[in-house]
């Protein structure tokens, strides 16, 4: 996805890399290695003055129950503000698609925190930035 970069995830596995969330392919995915909370740290592309800020972010996932969205503006990924808590429905392992609106202006870093899940593991298949 144009510019959306995954900076950190809290579960590493060689077969399911974090890049597979932003490669646009829903078949490739990132999966957690157990336990909650899990975190994904994203860096949003900075538009060169005049480009529109993103309206929201679309996420395709499985097994997530409570998703906490936090964002930060600063040059470093600290001082996050809680934007919203999203509750996702239980699809028993099926794909959950959700659009998270990003109100406000110049967010630079985005932190998605899976606080609770429907089962022991959760996975994220696609992250799409909507302009």
């Amino acid at each position, binding site marked *: 996805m144009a510019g959306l970069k995954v900076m950190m995830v*809290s*579960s*590493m596995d060689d077969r399911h890399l974090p890049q597979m969330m932003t490669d646009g392919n829903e078949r490739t995915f990132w999966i957690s*290695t157990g*336990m*909650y*909370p899990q975190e994904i740290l994203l860096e949003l592309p900075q538009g060169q003055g005049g480009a529109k800020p993103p309206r929201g972010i679309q996420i395709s996932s499985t097994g997530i129950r409570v998703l906490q969205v936090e964002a930060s503006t600063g040059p470093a990924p600290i001082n996050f503000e809680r934007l919203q808590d999203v509750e996702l429905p239980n699809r028993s392992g099926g794909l959950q698609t959700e659009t998270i609106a990003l109100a406000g202006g110049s967010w630079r870093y985005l932190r998605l925190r899976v606080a609770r899940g429907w089962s022991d593991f959760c996975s994220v298949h696609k992250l799409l930035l909507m302009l």
Partner: protein
Amino acid sequence: MATLLKEIVDHLNAEPFHMNLTLVTFDEKQPIELLETLNAILVHLDGKKHEVDVREENQDNMYVRMAGFLHVIGCKANYDEEFQKSFVAGDKRTLYPIIHWLLSDLERLRKRAYLAHYLVPIDVPPEFLGDEAMMEMYQQYKGLQAQFKSNHQALEQAKETSTNPSELRKELQQLEAEKEQLQQKIASLQSKTQNKEGFDALLEVTSSLRKEQEEEARIAEKIREQRVQLEQAEQQYMLSTQRLAELKSSIKDSDAGAETMLKVLRDEVNRNRENLERYRREVDEKKDRLHTLEATLSEPPVSQVMIRDLESQVAGLRDEIQTLEDRLEEDANQTDDKLTVFKQQANLVGKKKEIALKELKDAEHERSELSQRLSDREREYEERRGHKFLRKDEFKQYAAELREKTAKYKEMKADLNEIRQEVATLTRTEQILQQRDERLAKTVAELEAKRGVAGYQTTERSLEEISAHKAQVDKSKEVQLDELSRIVTEITNQLKDKKNQLAPQIKNLREVRAQFQELEAKYNEKKGAYNSVQLAVDSDLSRLRHEVETLQAECDDAESRYHQHNVDIQTAEALLERANKEAKYQRGEGRYSKEFATLSALLTNKLNELDLHSRDLRKQQKEVKENQEPRMKQREMFSVLQRLLDVKLKTAGQEAGGMRTTGESFRAGGGAVMDMAGQAQGVNRLIITE
């Protein structure tokens, strides 16, 4: 099944049974009758053992006897329950095969039954074999069995080799009868010829004649035999000489003997293979023929009915043909007029043609006759006149030729005469010269003798000869030398040519070699550089890999710590929550539970309870500690008491036993007995009552 039955009936009707059965009667036999027939067969096979009346015999015994016997002689059947049942019931399906098998091999089975009698091994259990007498008997038995076997085999062999004694006897009788007859004849002849004189001589001569005739016959036979053998030997000899000649010729012909021999052998092998093929084909053809003949033989005999059918078919077909032909004729007759006109014309023309042919033949015949006559007349004329009949022109030609020939003849004759004359003169001159030569040689010899150089002429002549010879030899040498020099020049020329051809190639080679050396140097340089670069790259790669591994390990470590911290946070939060709630309850803003306001209340309550409990327990402990000693003593005393009482009981019981016979009336309540026993024994007794 039908063929089986048929065969069984055939066998039973022949000897030795002569039962006179037909298929139907045999099939209709009752089961018990079937068993009787089987019994009869078994009687024939083994005599005494089976002469039991089947009707009166117990069925099980019968089965055991028969099945045992069948098994011994080797009848193949599974002797199971079903078989037993069907056998005893006389079931056709089981008995027919058995009967058939028995009948088809009667003689052999008979012998087998007889042998089985003696050769079936007796099963002696080992415990009996331990006994010495038994062991001896057993060994004896085994020895006798072996002897029996050998004797039987010898007997069989003798039977085979020698002829039947009855046949021999018959022959003997015949020969004796003949001998008598011959004796009678001799006696009568003797009586007839006794008186005749000179008969002895005649008899001698005739007898010798007869003997010689016999000898002649024998010799003729031998001659025939030997002639046949000679022919065979000659054929073989011819074949082998042929082969030898072939081989020799092949060896002589070429230098590479082995190859030709191989070729010859290969040819032979091929020839043999072809022969083999031919024979195989012949064999196959003969086999086919045999098969067809067998097939025709094995076809079911053509019955009368079939023949009649075929004849009727033939007749029918013939009728058809007839009708078709009639129809054809009708059709032929009923065609249009045009066709008939044409047909008539055709017939006419045909007839005319025939006539013309006949005329032609007659004319030819006349012609041949006439020519024959002509030749005959000519021959007559020739004979008469001495030369052929000449016409005018021929005669003129003949005369001209004759003239020519005479002219030639005259010329040649003149030539011949001249030449003859010349020959005469030449011979004459030769003679004269020879004479002169002789005279000259004589004078030369005289001169030589005078001058003392004898034999000069001869030596001169030999010198001349030798020099001529030498000249010849020199010439041949020259020729050879020429040839040699020619060859040498040829060879040098060839060498030069080849060298010239090679020269440019060699130049190329040198150039290329130089190039190659340059390239090799460059290559080595580059290879060295490549190796060094590769080393550097490899070391970099390994270093990076190492780094990656350490970083990965760090990452994993960080991840696990993150989760650990999260979990710690959660537990800490829970504790904090609890503390906050407790504070709230303390302030009075809520209740912990129905019974207790705050958690601390609950806990203090619990503490108090536990204190009380511990105090109780301590009291108990003290009590137990104090009272332990006296209680132990009491316990001891009680145990001693019990022992005493036990002993007393025992003794009382023994006395009571002695008194029981007299005091049985006091059985009501064992205590009464005890009572009496107690009173009898003394004063200080414990009365035991129930």
